[in-house]
């Protein structure tokens, strides 16, 4: 099974296609000029310095980080018990509840944005951090539920039964046996929830306010006004962070399994 030269050419073009816009962003961000251009005569980090001095982008980054942390934690708090019931117990309505908990994945983010905008306006919460956290929690919870479910189904249930038969209460058996064994699922579910919250744009663009804007929305609003090397510097910083994150995630969990929802690698 070897790929022929045609296949390898196709593959090279494909990878080039995927890399092209990202490379372009990083090149433009290194320009020494004050307008959009490739760094033909001299590279400079001046736009990275400008980015650090830009209070709007820094505030948006802080909002995004705080929002991602809160939404991922909230999603896990809901997912850890719910996924346990779905993965380990037989009860009427189990499938319906499971489908309901996954349903945010099926609703376009545009529709969620519209619905949340109206809801939070009526509730008088529009533009606040709490409304963003609630909205993001619901949107990222399915990822947490999915990875927690595969963590619970991937472990041997007799370990918990053994703890129970040795006299541990249900709570002790869960916190001392099951949960520690599910830690890879807890961590990967949390990370997937955080990443999806951090990247979310379509829904958040409806909910953000001038004083409470996430980084992707800030970048979008900036591009709508003007495309300059500054926004390229902010974007390439995100690309570099994504590459670092990718290497770490792949080392720990296997990126393909995380993204296809198969749960972390089995330890062998």
């Amino acid at each position: 099974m070897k790929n022929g030269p045609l296949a390898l050419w196709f593959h090279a073009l494909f990878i080039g296609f995927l890399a092209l816009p990202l490379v372009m962003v990083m090149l433009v961000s290194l320009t020494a000029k004050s307008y959009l251009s490739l760094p033909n005569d001299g590279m400079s980090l001046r736009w990275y310095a400008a980015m650090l001095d830009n209070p709007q982008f820094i505030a948006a980054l802080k909002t995004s980080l705080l929002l991602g942390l809160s939404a991922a934690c909230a999603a896990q708090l809901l997912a850890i018990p719910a996924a346990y019931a779905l993965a380990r117990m037989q009860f009427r309505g189990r499938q319906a509840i499971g489908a309901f908990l996954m349903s945010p994945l099926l609703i376009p983010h545009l529709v969620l944005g519209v619905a949340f905008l109206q809801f939070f306006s009526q509730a008088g919460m529009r533009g606040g951090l709490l409304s963003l956290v609630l909205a993001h929690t619901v949107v990222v919870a399915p990822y947490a539920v999915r990875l927690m479910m595969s963590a619970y189904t991937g472990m041997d249930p007799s370990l918990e039964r053994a703890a129970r038969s040795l006299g541990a209460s249900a709570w002790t058996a869960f916190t001392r046996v099951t949960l520690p064994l599910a830690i890879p699922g807890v961590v990967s579910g949390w990370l997937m929830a955080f990443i999806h919250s951090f990247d979310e744009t379509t829904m958040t663009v409806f909910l953000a306010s001038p004083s409470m804007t996430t980084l992707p929305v800030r970048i979008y609003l900036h591009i709508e006004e003007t495309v300059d090397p500054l926004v390229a510097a902010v974007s390439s910083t995100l690309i570099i962070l994504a590459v670092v994150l990718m290497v770490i995630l792949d080392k720990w969990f296997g990126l393909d399994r995380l993204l296809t929802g198969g749960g972390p690698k089995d330890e062998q």
Partner: protein
Amino acid sequence: MRRLPWKPLALTGPALLVYLVVLAGPVFLMLLLSLQGGKGVAGVTLAHYAEILGDGYFWEIYARTFVMALVVTAVCLLIGVPEAYFLYRMRAPWRGYFLLAVLAPLLVAVVVRTLGWALVLGPTGPISNTLVALGIVQQPVSLLQTMSGVVIALVHVLVPFLVIAVWSSLQRFDPDTLRAAASLGGTDVAIFRRVVIPQVIPGALAGAVVVFSLSATAFATPAIVGGRRLKVVATSTYEEFLGNMNWQLGSALAVLLLVVNILVVVGASRLVEKKFAHVFES
């Protein structure tokens, strides 16, 4: 051990409560608002839906959105299926490295990737510069605000989903089948067409449904690359809400998009299950 129904309910309860209030509530409210008359008008009305369906302007926007989504899906299938297969045939460690390279863009925010395309496709980008340098065109050209530009950028954003879907269906595929086909004298093309394709069709179609649904409802990419001239349903909904402040009409636009989207996704999934039941059984 007797299973009491309150136990699973207590465990799933917090999640259900949050979902009911923060998900079902807002979606229901949106449906209500799309059926409401103007400010202070009581009663239920289909006026906003009638306005959309009776206006050629909105028909054009819906048609453009779904044609765009179909083209994006077709291109993704055309390049994503072979790429997944070539990845599958690679040896370790290349296979792992390149799978990572294909999946990595998913970790980069969509606005960032779209900004890259705005730079590549714009009048000062490499495409325009190359064409000018070769003397093919005299003036700088721009693919911004064109359908091709939006399709290229959306394919870039969404093709990893298709590659993953095909990749995971290839994981269940026995490589010995390929060797058997080769030993029986099948050419590469014949093997791909008659052995591989039938095996990956369910995965490819599942991925295609995801790609279609995401491109029909994409916002940031059509907004940045397509601009105001090339409106799609998502960008006009945004405009009705935050520009024209016509929330009832905006809600109706979003509800229609949701309904069409659900019909297409459910219809396609039914079709796949019916037609390819034999592949799932094996």
